[in-house]
C-alpha cells in the first residue's frame, strides 16, 4: 500500500509535470532544429517567437471569452490557436523578407546570422511588451481537472491523490497530433521531402530544381505553428508572462542540441531528457521516501538534490556532458 502511495506521489509530482513540460520543450526544440537544418543558424529569437504566438492566442482567447464563445470543458485557447499561428506566420515571413533574406543572398557566416537573430529577439521582445505589457496572464478556462485528487483517492482508496489537470492532458494530445502531422509532412509529402533534400545537400537540391525560397517559406510556416503551439501550451499550463519565454531559450536550445541539432526525432528525445532531469533533480523526494521507509519514520531534510532555482543549471550541465561525450548529440545531428 505504501509502495503504491509512493508511486502515486511520484507520478503526481514528477512524471505528469515532467511529461507535460517535456512535450512543450520538444515542440520548442523542433522549431529551433528546423531553422537550424534548413536555414543553418541557431535562432536566438525563438523564445520571443513562442512568446509572440502565445500572446496572440491570449488576446484572441480574451476576445472570444468576452463574446461568450467557449469550448465548454475545453479551454477556449484551442479555438484561438489557429489565429495565433496565422499571426506568427505573418510575422516570421515578414522578418524573413525584411531581415534574413539579405544574409542568405550574401551567404553570410552562420554566426553573423545568430547575431542578427538577437536583433530580431530584441525587437520581438519590445513588440510583445508594448502590446500586452509584462503582467502575468492566466487564460486557461473550461474544466480544471481531468482527474481530481479527491475523486482519485475515493476511487483507489489510497492516501495519496493523483491530479491531472486538463491543460496537462491537452498538452500531450495536442503535442502528439502536432508531431504526427509534422513527421507525416516531412516524410510523406513532396514538399516535405524537398525540404529534407535541401537540408541534406543544398547544391544537389538546387540542381534538381527545388526552389530554395519556397523551402525557406515552408520552414518558417512550420516554425510559426510549432512555436505558437509550444508557447500557447506552456502559457496554458503555467501562465503567460513574456519574461519567462526568454528564459525558456536555454532549455529549448539544450533540448535541441542534446538530441542532435537538426534532427527532429532528437529534438523530441532531448525535450524529454531535459524536462525529466530538471524535474527529478529539483523535486523534494521527502514525501516519496517517507512512504517507502519504515512506519512513522521520515527523512530530516526535503531530500531535494538541487534547489529549484538551479533548473537552468541542470539543462546546461546535461548539455555539456552530452557534448563532451557525443558532440553531435544523442541522435546524429543535422539531418531532417
Amino acid at each position: 500500500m505504501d509502495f503504491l502511495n509512493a508511486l502515486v506521489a511520484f507520478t503526481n509530482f514528477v512524471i505528469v509535470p515532467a511529461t507535460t513540460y517535456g512535450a512543450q520543450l520538444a515542440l520548442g526544440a523542433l522549431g529551433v532544429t528546423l531553422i537550424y537544418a534548413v536555414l543553418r543558424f541557431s535562432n536566438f529569437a525563438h523564445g520571443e517567437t513562442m512568446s509572440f504566438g502565445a500572446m496572440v492566442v491570449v488576446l484572441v482567447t480574451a476576445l472570444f471569452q468576452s463574446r461568450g464563445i467557449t469550448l465548454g470543458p475545453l479551454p477556449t485557447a484551442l479555438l484561438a490557436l489557429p489565429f495565433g499561428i496565422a499571426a506568427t506566420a505573418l510575422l516570421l515571413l515578414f522578418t524573413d523578407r525584411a531581415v534574413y533574406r539579405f544574409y542568405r543572398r550574401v551567404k553570410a557566416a552562420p554566426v553573423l546570422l545568430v547575431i542578427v537573430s538577437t536583433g530580431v529577439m530584441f525587437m520581438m521582445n519590445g513588440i510583445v511588451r508594448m502590446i500586452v505589457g509584462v503582467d502575468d496572464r492566466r487564460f486557461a478556462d473550461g474544466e480544471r481537472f481531468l482527474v481530481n485528487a479527491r475523486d482519485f483517492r475515493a476511487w483507489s482508496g489510497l492516501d495519496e491523490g493523483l491530479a491531472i489537470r486538463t491543460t496537462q492532458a491537452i498538452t500531450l494530445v495536442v503535442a502528439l497530433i502536432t508531431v504526427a502531422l509534422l513527421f507525416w509532412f516531412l516524410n510523406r509529402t513532396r514538399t516535405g521531402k524537398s525540404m529534407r533534400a535541401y537540408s541534406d545537400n543544398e547544391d544537389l537540391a538546387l540542381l534538381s530544381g527545388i526552389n530554395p525560397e519556397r523551402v525557406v517559406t515552408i520552414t518558417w510556416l512550420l516554425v510559426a505553428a510549432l512555436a505558437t503551439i509550444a508557447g500557447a501550451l506552456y502559457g496554458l499550463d503555467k501562465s503567460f508572462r513574456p519574461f519567462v519565454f526568454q528564459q525558456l531559450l536555454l532549455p529549448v536550445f539544450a533540448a535541441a542540441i542534446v538530441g542532435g541539432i537538426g534532427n527532429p526525432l532528437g529534438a523530441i528525445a532531448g525535450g524529454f531528457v531535459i524536462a525529466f532531469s530538471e524535474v527529478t533533480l529539483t523535486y523534494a523526494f521527502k514525501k516519496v521516501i517517507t512512504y517507502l521507509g519504515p512506519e512513522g519514520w521520515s527523512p530530516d531534510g526535503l531530500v531535494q538534490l538541487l534547489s529549484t532555482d538551479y533548473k537552468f543549471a541542470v539543462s546546461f550541465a546535461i548539455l555539456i556532458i552530452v557534448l563532451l561525450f557525443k558532440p553531435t548529440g544523442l541522435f546524429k545531428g543535422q539531418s531532417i
Partner: protein
Amino acid sequence: MTHVTRTRAPLYFAAMAVLILAVGLLQSWNSALSILNMGLISAIMALGVNLQWGYAGLFNVGVMGFVALGGLAVVLTSMPPVPAAWSAGGLRVLLALAVGAASIAVSILLWKRLPRGRARGFILAAFLIVAFAAYRWLFDPAVAAIEAVDPATSGYLGGLGLPVLLAWPVGALLAAGAAWLVGKTALGLRSDYLAIATLGIAEIILAAMKNEDWLTRGVKNVNGLPRPVPYEIELQQAPWFLDLMQQIGANPVVGSTIFVKLLYAFFFLVVIGVIVLAMELALKSPWGRMMRAIRDNEVAAEAMGKNVTGRHLQIFVLGAAVIGFAGAMMTTLDGQLTPTTYQPLRYTFLVWVMVIVGGSGNNWGAVLGGMLVWFLWVEVEPIGAWIIGLLTAGLEDGSPLKAGLIERVAYMRYLTMGLILLLVLRFSPRGLLPEK
C-alpha cells in the same frame, strides 16, 4: 589607427561629448555624469567583447555572467567579514567546496585511467553518488548555520574587508577563471556551441548568486559596499569643500554629488586609458596579427603551426577578465549587489549592440559604441515619452489610450536597440569606426 579612423574618430567622439553636454544643459549635470560613468563602464565591457569577437571571432553570449562575477568580487573583497558566521560554519563550507572540487578532479582521473567498458560507467556513477552525498552532508548544515546568523543584516560570510579598488582585479580573476572552465569544455566544439555554453554558464552564475545566500545574501542584496571616493555627506561637512563651492558659487549639496561622480569618472577614464593602450599595443604586436590571421582563416593559421584552440582559450579568458573588471567597477559605482537586476537583455545583448554599432575589431569603435548605445538606452525613454506626449497632446489627461501609450514607451528601448542593431548590421556592418 588608420586613415579613416583618424579623421572620423575625433569627430564622433566630439559629437558624443556634445550629446552628453546637451544632457547636462537640458536635463541636469547629475544625469549627464551618470550617463558618462555608466557609458565608460559599458565601453569597457564592449572592449572585452571586442577582444573576443573583434580580434578572434569568438561569440560570447554570457557577458552577463562575467559582469555578475565582477559584482560578486566586490562583495568578497571589500565587505567586512562576519565573524559569527565564520565560526558558525565558515570552515565547514570551505571544506565542503574542497571536497566537491576534489571529487570532480577524481572523477575526471577515474574516467581517464579506468579501462573502457560498462564497468567504468558504473564505477564512476557510484563514486559520484557517494561524493555528492558526502558533499551535501558537509555543506547543508554549514549553510543553514551561516544563514541563521542575524539573517536581517548579514546571514552570509561577508568578505575580506580589503580596499574596494582591489576588487576590480579580483573581479577580472573570477571572470577569467569561469571563462577558462567554459573555454576548456566548449572551444573545441563548433562555434555556435560556444554561444550556447556561455549562455548557460551565465544563467548558472546568476542562479548561484540568487540562491547561495551564505555567499551573496541572494535576493536580500548586499547594501552599503565601500567606495573608493568620499561620501557626499562628508564632503558637505568638509571645510575645504565648502570653501571651494563658495569660490565657484555652487550649491554644496548638488556640488558634492557632482564632485563624487567626477571622481568616479576619473577612475574609469584611467582604467579605460590603460585597457585601450594595452589592447592597441597587443593588436599591433605579432600576437595581434596572429589572432587576426586565425580569425580570418583558421585552417591556414593551423597549417602555419598555430595552436588555434590554445590561442582562442587565451583570448577568451582575457576578454572575460576585462568584462569582469567592468562588472566590479559597476557594482562599486552602484554601491550594492542586487543579483536580480542581472538580465541577459541588458548585460549581454546590449553590450553586443555596442560592439557592432561601434565597429567590431576596432577598440576606439568599442569605446564609442559603448558610450553612444548607453546614451541611447537611457535617453530613448524620455525622448519617446516626449514624442508620445506631443502626439497625444490632443487627448485629455487620464484617457486610457494616453495612459496606455505612455506606459508602453518604457518598452520602446528594446525595440529601438533591436532596430539599431539590425540597421547597422544590414547597412553598415563594419560599424561607426570600421577596423582599418
